[in-house]
């Protein structure tokens, strides 16, 4: 096994100051010990060289240790670009233990104290830093030094590692899309109270508000991901910045103002929101439309000519607006999120359980087709999130729905369904949620690998911006967050997490690995990636079709469904923190062999 980064102690300290290098997959607590979730990995025999393909990142962690409280200065020297982040130790409300996750950007040289007065850990002995080395596509291949220096009253220390830049270039396009979902925008005011107060009652119409929205897109984009914000509620209430303002009724219904919508989406659809980013300006690949049973047509007219008149007028205007603006790169999703259990409408748009509800998809598909010119360059898609009735919907709605977000447990029974959806050109993702910090560091890499092994297009973390009321000292574990508000640290925007970084590095590896299929059979690449990850075979990532699949879905119980997916869950229960490191080593090995 080849390990990417140094794990050996390199300290020239003569008194008490020390620097310790850690690979990205071993997180250390404020006491300097590896956190419980990552402890199973042997912590020695690491190489002294980091390999990285161009147009990509290499990451490692550096821990500063002082024997007694005091100030220190931390420096990083390299001809390559280094981004350095202070790791925040979150106190878990449940277990009262500390886990690092949020990453606070620091400027170099960085002077700080141990214990960190802000993190408020009385016996803190160690402060870890996350280091991203960015290697642009034009970098000359070869070996580059990377050194770390620590100065303190206890003495000085230094550590070094070599970065070997390979000739291979990581493709721009990812092999799998990682989507980060969220709901509405009221949470932005909640987690940026300072910015909210500065802008007063106009906050939600202010430039600061739209800058924050764009900052969320930007952070996920820079981490090779996608960000979604759903803009309407289960009974059809639409947030003002998620839809153009409407006026009129019946045949006179029309769009009255694009103001807030265009301020929100314009920079995302033309890519200018990403100006100055390392990945360059690029339109977002996906966005929800605000369409739901109550918008743009009033539900009052459902089943009457006025419903299609209102729907058609507004959808036609939207298509024309997008076309005239040249917003023709983003896939705009007609998507119904409502469930009848929330009492807004009499059918399930999300996760249809009752087959009778499919008829509404057909009706909307028809109305949408009537409203949009056949040769429109605007890229509309009809998206459905599906679980119980996936097998039936995939046939019944073929040719109507062309973007499927599937329950991973249920899709795991149906490799044929996934194949058939892909054969006809549909987009196929599965959904899940971020693993909490208390799971092994590599847990977050299971999802991109699973999507790639399955031969589908991506996956969705269902909620990624909700870190709880007090993520700093009463942390819920981060099961619904992969970024945090930076306001506590004077940053008006989100800051990343260790899990987001680990995920990004896995996705960039997959992009490179996938590009090798021009020279190696993809089945061979998949088999080796699965073997390296956890000793599995690609077929182990599917479950056998269960007996309940032959019964009507309304008879299935959650217990039965859980049991039917137990095989893959069991296989992934023991994912080791270094599981992805083994896949990375394989990718780097291939990159060196095939260059």
């Amino acid at each position, binding site marked *: 096994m080849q390990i990417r980064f140094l794990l050996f102690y390199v300290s020239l300290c003569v008194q008490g100051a020390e620097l310790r290098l850690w690979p990205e997959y071993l997180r250390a607590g404020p006491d300097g010990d590896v956190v419980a979730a990552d402890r199973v990995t042997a912590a020695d025999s690491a190489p002294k060289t980091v390999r990285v393909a161009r147009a990509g990142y290499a990451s490692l962690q550096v821990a500063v240790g002082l024997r007694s409280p005091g100030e220190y200065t931390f420096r990083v020297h390299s001809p390559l670009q280094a981004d350095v982040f202070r790791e925040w130790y979150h106190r878990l409300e449940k277990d009262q233990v500390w886990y690092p996750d949020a990453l606070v950007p620091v400027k170099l040289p960085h002077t700080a104290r141990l214990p960190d007065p802000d993190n408020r850990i009385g016996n803190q002995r160690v402060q870890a830093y996350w280091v991203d080395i960015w290697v642009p596509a034009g970098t000359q291949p070869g070996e580059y030094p990377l050194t770390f220096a620590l100065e303190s009253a206890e003495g000085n220390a230094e550590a070094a590692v070599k970065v070997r830049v390979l000739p291979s270039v990581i493709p721009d396009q990812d092999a799998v899309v990682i989507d980060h979902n969220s709901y509405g925008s009221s949470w932005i005011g909640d987690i940026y109270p300072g910015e909210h107060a500065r802008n007063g009652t106009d906050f939600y119409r202010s430039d600061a508000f739209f800058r924050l929205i764009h900052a969320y897109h930007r952070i996920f984009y820079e981490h090779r991901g996608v960000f979604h914000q759903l803009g309407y509620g289960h009974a059809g*209430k639409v947030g003002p910045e998620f839809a153009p303002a409407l006026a009129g009724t019946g045949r006179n219904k029309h769009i009255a103002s694009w103001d807030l919508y265009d301020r929100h989406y314009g920079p995302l659809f033309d890519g200018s929101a990403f100006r100055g980013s390392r990945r360059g300006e690029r339109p977002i690949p996906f966005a929800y439309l605000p369409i739901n049973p109550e918008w743009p047509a009033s539900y009052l007219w459902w089943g009457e000519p006025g419903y299609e008149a209102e729907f058609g007028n507004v959808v036609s205007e939207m298509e024309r607006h997008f076309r005239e603006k040249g917003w023709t790169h983003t896939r705009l999703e007609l998507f119904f999120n409502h469930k009848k259990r*929330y009492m807004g*409408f009499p059918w399930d748009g999300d996760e249809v359980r009752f087959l009778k509800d499919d008829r509404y998809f057909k009706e909307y598909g028809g109305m949408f087709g009537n409203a949009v010119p056949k040769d429109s360059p605007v890229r509309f898609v009809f998206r459905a999130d599906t679980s119980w009735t996936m097998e039936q919907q995939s046939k019944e709605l073929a040719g109507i729905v062309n973007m499927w977000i599937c329950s991973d447990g249920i899709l795991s029974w149906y490799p044929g369904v996934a194949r058939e959806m892909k054969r006809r050109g549909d987009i196929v993702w599965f959904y899940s949620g971020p693993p909490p910090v208390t799971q092994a560091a590599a847990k977050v890499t299971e999802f991109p690998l699973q999507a790639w092994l399955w031969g589908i297009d991506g996956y969705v973390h269902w909620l990624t911006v909700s870190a709880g009321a007090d993520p700093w000292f009463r942390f819920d574990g981060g099961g619904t967050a992969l970024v945090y508000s930076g306001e506590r640290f004077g940053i008006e925007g989100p800051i990343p997490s260790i899990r987001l970084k680990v995920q990004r590095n896995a996705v960039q590896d997959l992009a490179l690995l996938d590009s090798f299929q021009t020279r190696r059979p993809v089945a061979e690449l998949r088999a080796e990636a699965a073997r390296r990850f956890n000793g599995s075979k690609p077929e182990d990532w599917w479950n056998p079709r269960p007996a309940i699949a032959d019964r009507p879905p309304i008879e299935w119980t959650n217990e039965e469904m859980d049991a039917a997916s137990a095989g893959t869950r069991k296989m992934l229960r023991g994912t080791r923190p270094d599981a992805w490191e083994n896949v990375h080593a394989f990718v780097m090995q291939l990159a060196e062999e095939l260059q």
Partner: protein
Amino acid sequence: MKYALLLALAAALAAEDRFTRELEETARVASVMVDGDVCRRIVTARAMDYLLRTDPKDRFLAGDNYDVNAEAFHSVKKTLIRLSRLVPFPADANLWMPVPGHPDKVRIVIRNANELSQFWPWGALYQDMIPEMKTVLETGRRLTVTRKPGWVSALAPVRDSLGDIVALVEVASQRSLNPRENVK
């Protein structure tokens, strides 16, 4: 100056009164317009059977089996939307019904586009009976509730063809609306 302030105060109070009166008047009309027999047909018998069931191994049991008869739902929802349009400001008319055999429980059955209710804890299939709703259901009296600051809910009974009170309508609004609340 003093008179100007008094006049402004009087105008504000009058406006507040109008706000409440508009909702109360709509609730009064709702009692006439909403068909109690159709309301009874909205939630399917199967869904009602699951409504109060719990299973420690399946916490979504009731929700996953919640279902309605579309035609009855459409019919009553459209009436409720029309009622809400009697009010010259954003308001919702919501349908609430008792849980048969459980007089201490009540459930919301239809919500509307402004996602306004003074009583519904987001996501609940049923909840503890609201005392004012109990009064409406038992006595047939209309009531106005201003329990939460800024909120007004006018409650009115809904009868079926036998004259029994089978449901109630909550005509609800907030004096200061949050356009982003419940967009989730």
